[in-house]
């Protein structure tokens, strides 16, 4: 989230698209009801299904799964055409005026530089025209045909309301009504918030879906303001913390990168990370990259990381591929190239696409270790459960070790919510049975591995032997110790760069923020963005003061929000070029003539003059990007692409299947279905009664939603002779499931390209373990395809067929 849950109450218009906030985030959704109740805010829902969120919406429109980009580009086109643009914002706070290289272009659904062989773009043309001074060329009048604004105008020109209706199935009048409602939020005194979740991310072009809305929000001037923003609703209570702490296979904590094989030494690694500003006077905060990185390595290896050994850069692993995401790991496992898999707090058997492949992959392992509080399907993948898990147990030779762990309610620690609030919590219950904290288990494993290296040596023991492990009880680091380490502390006295005599942090003290980090080895911090969360004043995350001056929703004294306790990112953009709030009733920060002041921690240097320094301080441009240069693999603008399994061909390029640069393995490409065999579009989703695959173990939740079902329209039910509550078989290219049929008016066939498109809704909470009735999930059917930028699987749009089934399970 750029903003915070509590800020949603400040909005005038909530657009829920690519999510189902009421259903999947009912507690956070209360802020929508607050906005409706207290500001008269309107709620728009655009979703293939009439969801629980739609049930309380002011306006609902259906959309074909996987066609969001067309809708969003259509909305941008409508706003540009109807002058619903926050012009001052666009001209000053976005890169609309930047000139793009002449050789950049778009044709046949593809941007320049496509290499079909490599399934990749040569992105060199996707860049600004750089002047001799090293700064990008701009045209503040926005008239130059090569400026981003004109290119965008040209890019979205094809997305007429007719085109949008044809692709998305959204009736034109509904689309136009929504455009109108959205367009009103270009006024400085009206803001719109976008709430989205997996409905946008889980596509082969998920990141571009989100880009589309972000661009729309920038055009409306809704980023950095109260009640605005791009608000990703995170699914797990700590999934934000997962990415923050670098649990992605290509990241280290704080969104720093794991080096690749092409970066064998520190100098090479840093050479592409100087982040020189592309406009004069701009902050380009990533210029401090080396401070974050060195402090991280000091946290890892302490005294062993020295200037002489490039801060132990050699200890870091170097990736041979862009990432070892879950799809790649299971592809390797399926090929028999993985011996041991540690599965911690994860249920891949049900969570990952193409369950059949996951099962055979797990069966190839020698050892599977499952750390989980629950009896997961993954831990029991080898058990035969009739049709619900039809495996040949005798043929599976995998050793499975189950290490029971505690769950969140039995742990002390911090969770990062969608709004980046790191909230400390305390254990509410004693762990049952033999359950142990994950930290205890990890510490045991580490100590034993280290002992092996100590005793037996090894090819390269340094990284293990030198790892900092100075916890009071080496058997179980406490959450407090780990949190203090992430915040960082001064190893030597740290001085003010402007005043060599002034000590800003004494050696041994906790740092008060990442501004105190240094790249000379005098500081350490495990996760630079968390710096400030545990200072010399104590645990900031444990703060519980809910005072909120003037009811702005900022709650600055409640826990800690990264970065720097800032509640709304880019909040400098809430004020105009003179530093005055666009909307005085929604003031966030203001330029007093000398400094920035207000309700939130300014997202800019406190003394940076409003006319000089742009609000998007992390960007080299100092402004936001409507055009992303080469930073996304599939294009600097979003362009409509069909899902890999779609009832329609790509209208731009009939040969193009899915996202042309999305990663797909050969064996999986062969297992894609087509609409002649599988005529219906399926989409997966969650239900409010359950949380993922956990709560089916709980008798209360199981009673509230006991059995697996699929949802279909009355029209499809009639066409296939399916009765309400009857049993159906749903099958696709990769598998089949049996379910009860919920026949509903909330799904209607959409008309796309003149033909009806039926949608089959498949919720995902059932498996063969737990208290609820045994069932299936959508992932027996979903394709093994990942988003081009994030490798997130395409769970939200695939093809199936459906028919009535006999009541008794087929053995």
């Amino acid at each position: 989230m750029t903003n915070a849950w509590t800020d949603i109450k400040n909005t005038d218009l909530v657009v829920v698209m690519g999510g189902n906030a009421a259903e999947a985030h009912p507690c956070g959704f209360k802020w929508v009801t607050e906005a409706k109740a207290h500001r008269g805010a309107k709620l728009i829902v655009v979703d293939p299904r009439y969801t629980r969120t739609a049930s309380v919406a002011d306006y609902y429109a259906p959309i074909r799964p996987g066609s969001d980009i067309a809708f969003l580009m259509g909305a941008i086109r409508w706003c540009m055409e109807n002058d619903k643009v926050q012009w001052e914002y666009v001209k000053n706070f976005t890169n609309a005026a930047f000139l793009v290289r002449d050789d950049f272009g778009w044709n046949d659904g593809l941007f320049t530089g496509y290499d079909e062989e490599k399934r990749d773009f040569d992105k060199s043309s996707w860049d600004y025209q750089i002047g001799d001074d090293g700064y990008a060329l701009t045209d503040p009048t926005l008239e130059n045909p090569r400026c981003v604004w004109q290119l965008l105008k040209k890019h979205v020109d094809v997305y007429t309301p007719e085109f949008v209706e044809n692709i998305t199935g959204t009736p034109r009048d509904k689309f136009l009504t929504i455009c109108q409602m959205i367009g009103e939020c270009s006024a400085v005194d009206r803001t719109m918030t976008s709430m989205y979740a997996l409905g946008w991310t889980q596509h082969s072009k998920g990141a571009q879906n989100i880009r589309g809305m972000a661009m729309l929000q920038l055009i409306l001037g809704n980023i950095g303001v109260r009640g605005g923003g791009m608000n990703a609703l995170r699914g797990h209570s700590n999934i934000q913390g997962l990415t923050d702490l670098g649990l992605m296979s290509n990241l280290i904590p704080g969104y720093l990168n794991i080096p690749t094989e092409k970066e064998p030494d520190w100098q090479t690694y840093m050479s592409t990370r100087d982040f020189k500003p592309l406009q004069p006077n701009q902050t380009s905060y990533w210029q401090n990259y080396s401070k974050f990185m060195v402090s991280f390595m000091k946290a890892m290896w302490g005294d062993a990381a020295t200037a002489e050994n490039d801060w132990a850069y050699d200890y870091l692993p170097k990736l041979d591929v862009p990432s070892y995401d879950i799809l790649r790991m299971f592809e390797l496992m399926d090929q028999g190239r993985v011996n041991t898999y540690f599965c911690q707090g994860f249920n891949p058997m049900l969570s990952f696409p193409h369950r059949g492949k996951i099962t055979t992959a797990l069966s190839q392992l020698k050892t599977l270790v499952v750390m989980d509080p629950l009896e997961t399907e993954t831990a029991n993948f080898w058990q035969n459960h009739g049709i619900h898990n039809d495996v040949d147990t005798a043929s599976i030779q995998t050793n499975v070790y189950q290490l029971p762990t505690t769950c969140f309610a039995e742990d002390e620690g911090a969770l990062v919510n969608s709004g980046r609030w790191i909230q400390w919590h305390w254990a509410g219950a004693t762990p049952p049975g033999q359950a142990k904290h994950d930290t205890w288990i990890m510490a045991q494993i580490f100590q034993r591995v280290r002992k092996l290296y100590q005793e037996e040596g090894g090819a390269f023991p340094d990284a293990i032997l030198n790892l900092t492990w100075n916890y009071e009880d080496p058997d179980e680091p406490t959450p407090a110790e780990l949190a203090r380490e992430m915040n960082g502390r001064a190893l030597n006295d740290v001085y003010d760069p402007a005043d060599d005599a002034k000590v800003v942090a004494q050696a041994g003290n906790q740092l008060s923020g990442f501004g105190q980090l240094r790249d000379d080895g005098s500081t350490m911090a495990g996760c630079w963005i968390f710096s400030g969360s545990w200072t010399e004043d104590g645990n900031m995350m444990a703060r519980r003061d809910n005072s909120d001056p003037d009811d702005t929703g900022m709650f600055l004294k409640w826990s800690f929000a990264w970065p720097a306790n800032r509640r709304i990112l880019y909040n400098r953009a809430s004020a105009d070029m003179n530093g005055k709030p666009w909307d005085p009733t929604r003031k966030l920060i203001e330029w007093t003539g000398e400094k920035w002041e207000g309700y939130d921690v300014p997202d800019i240097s406190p003394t940076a003059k409003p006319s000089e320094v742009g609000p998007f301080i992390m960007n080299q441009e100092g402004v936001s990007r409507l055009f992303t240069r080469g930073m996304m693999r599939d294009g600097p603008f979003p362009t409509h692409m069909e899902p890999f399994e779609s009832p329609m061909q790509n209208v731009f390029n009939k040969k193009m299947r899915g996202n042309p640069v999305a990663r797909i393995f050969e064996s999986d490409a062969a297992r894609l279905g087509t609409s002649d065999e599988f005529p219906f579009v399926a989409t997966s989703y969650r239900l409010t009664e359950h949380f993922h695959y956990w709560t089916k173990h709980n008798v209360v939740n199981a009673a509230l939603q006991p059995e697996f079902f699929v949802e279909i329209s009355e029209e499809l039910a009639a066409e296939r002779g399916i009765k309400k509550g009857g049993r159906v078989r749903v099958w696709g290219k990769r598998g089949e499931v049996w379910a009860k049929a919920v026949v509903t008016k909330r799904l209607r066939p959409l008309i796309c390209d003149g033909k009806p498109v039926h949608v089959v809704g498949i919720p995902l909470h059932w498996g063969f373990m737990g208290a609820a009735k045994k069932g299936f999930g959508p992932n027996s059917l979903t394709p093994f395809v990942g988003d081009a930028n994030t490798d997130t699987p395409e769970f939200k749009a695939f093809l199936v067929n459906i028919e009535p089934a006999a009541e008794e399970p087929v053995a």
Partner: protein
Amino acid sequence: MKDTATGPTTAVSNPPVQPMKAYFDTSDIVRISATKDVPQPTRQLEKLAKLIDVSKCIGCKACQSACIEWNDTKPEIEENVGVYENPHDLTPNMFTLMRFSEWENPETDDLEWLIRKDGCMHCEDPGCLKACPAPGAIVQYSNGIVDFIHDNCIGCGYCVTGCPFNIPRISQVDHKSYKCTLCSDRVAVGQGPACAKACPTQAIVFGTKEDMKAHAETRIEDLKSRGYDNAGLYDPAGVGGTHVMYVLHHADKPGIYNNLPENPRISPLVEGWKGVTKTAGLAVVGLAALGATLHGLFSRGNRPDDHDDQAAETLVVERRDPENGGHI
């Protein structure tokens, strides 16, 4: 919501953590089932109410979950029968239930998914209490809460017939009647109903009835501004008003919310049964019994006389007809 309630409110503020004295108790009972002339309490508690704003409800079933947890009930894990209602109906183990209706608004042609939290309405004039034959099995407090006292319940099911909203359910295990208690045990110690506490959107709020009505007014105004011209409060007069009220977007058509009764009232049949039949019936039987006893025992009676005996003897022994003297 304004903070004027002297009684406890919830879903807005947290309850006190210190032990507190019960804010009402059995001395505040104003009505007791099958009991005449209940001594009236010396004080009148402020009337309480739970307000369920159907237009804010997202159907998440947190209320059901909280209800199960607080009351420690064990609803069955049933099947899916093609609908979202689970359990499929109110049960002795499920005191509240989200009911879902898909309604196509004929005026706009748009689908509306109407989700209503069903459960005891806590009528000011409770039909269950009227129908109940067991003294003390159902009580009403002066704050409006209608509560079942299970020690006194005999499981006859008369409350089911008395209820205009079809709420009570009789357990097949202990043969007692169960329904929402409005969390009388929580309310008594400054906490609101568990469902209101759990409701993430504050579609369920709780406080004094006056406050709830005022709050409902603001909600209705908001709904009207959004084009729901018939938005209104459901506080049906036919049962003297209720202590569980709904804000409905279509208050003119309560029936579309899964058959919420248009004009609920205690059935005239039940009124007749528990009113005139009960009194008159007992009176008639009593009088008849008394009269019959007195007359039957103390009147002379209809006694055969000697003449009759002789006639019989003549007939039977002499085989002559005593009336005409001839042989028979």
